[in-house]
């Protein structure tokens, strides 16, 4: 009898220990997916709150992931800080928890993993297109912003947010726009009697002259393939026409067309002639910028977001007043409009679909404050970010000579073309990056690179059907 009692007691003790460990407070485990009816269900209650003080507001956190890291991004970080401050003041109890992460790590590692795990931040930096924003939207991970935009009355204020749209609903908002083109060091050009190139031949002659003098013609850091991809994207458009990106994405055009191969061949030729930074495959994007700032290279192919670097108080102040900009010159025999410029509005903010009423209110305030004419104009003036919204042209004046050149170059353009990464699926973008690096390393011929990319595109298109 006694031993049975001991056995039973042992069993009961063990089972209760296991069950108590496995159990949980249902209230604690309540998901935050459903809109909370009152602020009292917010994530972090204030300890001072008492039932007798209905006016007291409980604090709740709103996680905000941004990519404004380091000195190069300080102007945009300042704008973000102001917007957060304003939004916190407008929404009682809201506390934005800022989480700064380097761009490509957020884009390719952290955010995708969080999306799969179902715990992305409430507000986060997001790229549009089928590989990212549209994919997350289709999986119901993103907040449908259409009602918020309607309520705030800013739906028609954006120039183009198409890469964030799925089935007519808006899931992300571009923070700005950017063009990609040639920056040049005017001191180096002058010292070597080089005029600002107007044609591709002149540009190549300039590269040859600089190389002959022992100066790196083009600063390039290809450790991350998206960096050389900017130049290749523009070269492909020059050779194959500004509609090539959309054509390849919808299957009506092919990467194997001779014009596309010619663009790859031109890039490969520049690599072989040694026009790019030596050891470029081991240099990152910051290293590329630093090489140009240090005055070691004559040209830099980059986005207009780089303009503020050369401001009087920018990290590249050594080159203040010595940097010029021009769009990729025309290619003789190139297809389509040779004045077309690259124009991207593919980066901005997205918002988690897993938010309660409080968080939604904070998101609305954030959108209202950030996507305003004031900050669009400031982003343009302080940081060289072209507006993604319709802004009074009178407010878009700039004393910055580089910005004036960008505006003139864009005004002269007959049309614009996007970047491949905003239109093609993720695996195709990945193949692009792989083949570009193979081309640089001499491991792939232009024909093979184009062919391999097309193969992946074909299989993606077949999967869609």
């Amino acid at each position, binding site marked *: 009898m006694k*031993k049975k009692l001991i056995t039973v007691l*042992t*069993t009961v003790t063990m089972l209760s220990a296991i069950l108590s460990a496995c159990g949980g407070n249902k209230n604690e485990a309540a998901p935050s997916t459903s809109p909370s009816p009152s602020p009292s269900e917010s994530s972090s209650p204030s300890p001072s709150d008492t039932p007798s003080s209905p006016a007291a507001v409980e604090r709740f956190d709103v996680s905000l992931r941004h990519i404004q890291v380091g000195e190069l991004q300080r102007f945009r970080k300042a704008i973000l800080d102001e917007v957060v401050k304003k939004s916190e003041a407008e929404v009682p109890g809201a506390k934005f928890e800022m989480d700064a992460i380097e761009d490509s790590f957020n884009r390719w590692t952290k955010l995708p993993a969080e999306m799969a795990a179902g715990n992305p931040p409430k507000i986060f930096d997001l790229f549009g297109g089928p590989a990212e924003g549209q994919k997350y939207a*289709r999986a119901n991970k993103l907040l449908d912003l259409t009602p918020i935009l309607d309520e705030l009355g800013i739906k028609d204020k954006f120039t183009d947010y198409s890469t964030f749209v799925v089935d007519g609903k808006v899931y992300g908002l571009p923070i700005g726009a950017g063009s990609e083109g040639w920056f040049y060091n005017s001191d180096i050009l002058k010292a070597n009697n080089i005029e600002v190139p107007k044609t591709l031949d002149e540009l190549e002659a300039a590269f040859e002259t600089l190389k002959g003098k022992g100066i790196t013609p083009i600063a390039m850091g290809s*450790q991350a393939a998206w960096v050389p991809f900017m130049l290749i994207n523009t070269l492909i458009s020059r050779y194959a026409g500004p509609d090539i990106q959309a054509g390849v994405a919808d299957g009506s055009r092919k990467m194997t067309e001779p014009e596309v191969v010619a663009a790859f061949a031109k890039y490969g030729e520049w690599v072989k002639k040694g026009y790019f930074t030596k*050891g470029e495959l*081991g240099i990152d994007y910051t290293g590329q910028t630093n090489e140009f700032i240090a005055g070691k290279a004559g040209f830099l192919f980059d986005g207009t977001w780089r303009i503020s670097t050369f401001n009087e108080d920018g990290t590249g102040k050594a080159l203040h007043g010595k940097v010029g900009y021009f769009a990729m010159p025309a290619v003789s025999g190139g297809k389509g409009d040779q004045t077309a410029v690259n124009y991207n509005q593919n980066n901005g903010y997205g918002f988690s679909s897993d938010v309660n009423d409080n968080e939604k209110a904070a998101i609305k305030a954030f959108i209202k404050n950030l996507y305003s004419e004031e900050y669009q104009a400031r982003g343009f003036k302080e940081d060289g970010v072209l507006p993604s919204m319709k802004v009074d042209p009178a407010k878009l004046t700039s004393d910055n000579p580089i910005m004036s050149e960008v505006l003139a170059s864009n005004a002269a353009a007959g049309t614009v073309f996007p970047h491949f990464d905003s239109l093609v699926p993720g695996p195709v973008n990945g193949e692009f990056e792989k083949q570009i*690096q193979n081309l640089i*390393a001499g491991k792939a011929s232009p024909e093979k690179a184009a062919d391999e990319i097309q193969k992946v595109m074909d299989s993606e298109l077949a999967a869609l059907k």
Partner: protein
Amino acid sequence: MNKTLRNPYVYLLFVLPTIGLYFLFFIYPVLQSVFYGLTDWDGLTPAKYIGLGNFEKAFKDDDFWISVKNNMYFILFSVFVQVPLIICFSLLISGVKRFQGFYKTTVFLPSILSTSIIGILWQFMYHPSIGLFNKFLGWFGVEPIYWLADPKWAMLSILITNAWQWMGFYIVLVLAAILAIPKEINEAAEIDGATGFQRAYRITTPLIMPIISVVIMLSIAGAMRVVDIVLVMTKGGPAGATEVMASYMVNKAIKYGQYGYGTALSIMIFAIALLLTALYQIAFARRQERVEY
């Protein structure tokens, strides 16, 4: 009470929590991995069963096999370069009469440093223009080598850094084994006229074979799961030249959202690691005789 403990079910009751935890944190994830490896799961939408499609794809995936080859370089470098050096350094340090503790600490130091620090430190040393190696080679008129940017050199550069990081740890293991050998054996050999080299080669090394076997085993296991040093130094570049199995798998799963394929790759990596260690055990480790002093 004694009678209670004679009841086998009581013991079963005691091990149940452990079995439960083991199942929850080991068996269940493994089974789940196998399940996802048979699907086209993208991490966002419900998984669809595709049979062995992912494994077929992996067998045809040239890039995956390049990464397997790169892991093999790690194994070969560990076994044929690192282990002999570990033995040499251990023998040298064991023979040192003064400051032995200093040498032991110095060689052990890299293995307690974080891989990020080591990666960045060596990136400076490999820097094409200001790096230690190119400065040194420059004195002899050698043109700058792009250690981490040239596909020809990048792998070797990482192998050297990885070896530097882990050699100290193994040296301390081997050193402990050497110092545990009774002094009389070496003294007797010395009296019999054996030279230092003969004693090291004929007496010490055979006596520490069991620990060397463990070191080789650990090196193989370490080489199979190497990834951190690669991510810090080259991120798998230049042009995929230093991509290893783990970094390739993470890229496929997370960057491109091919979780099903990534999981299938992880199962293949597990199988390859299992196969290699089993082969080593069968071919070499089992043949070792027990050392009795």
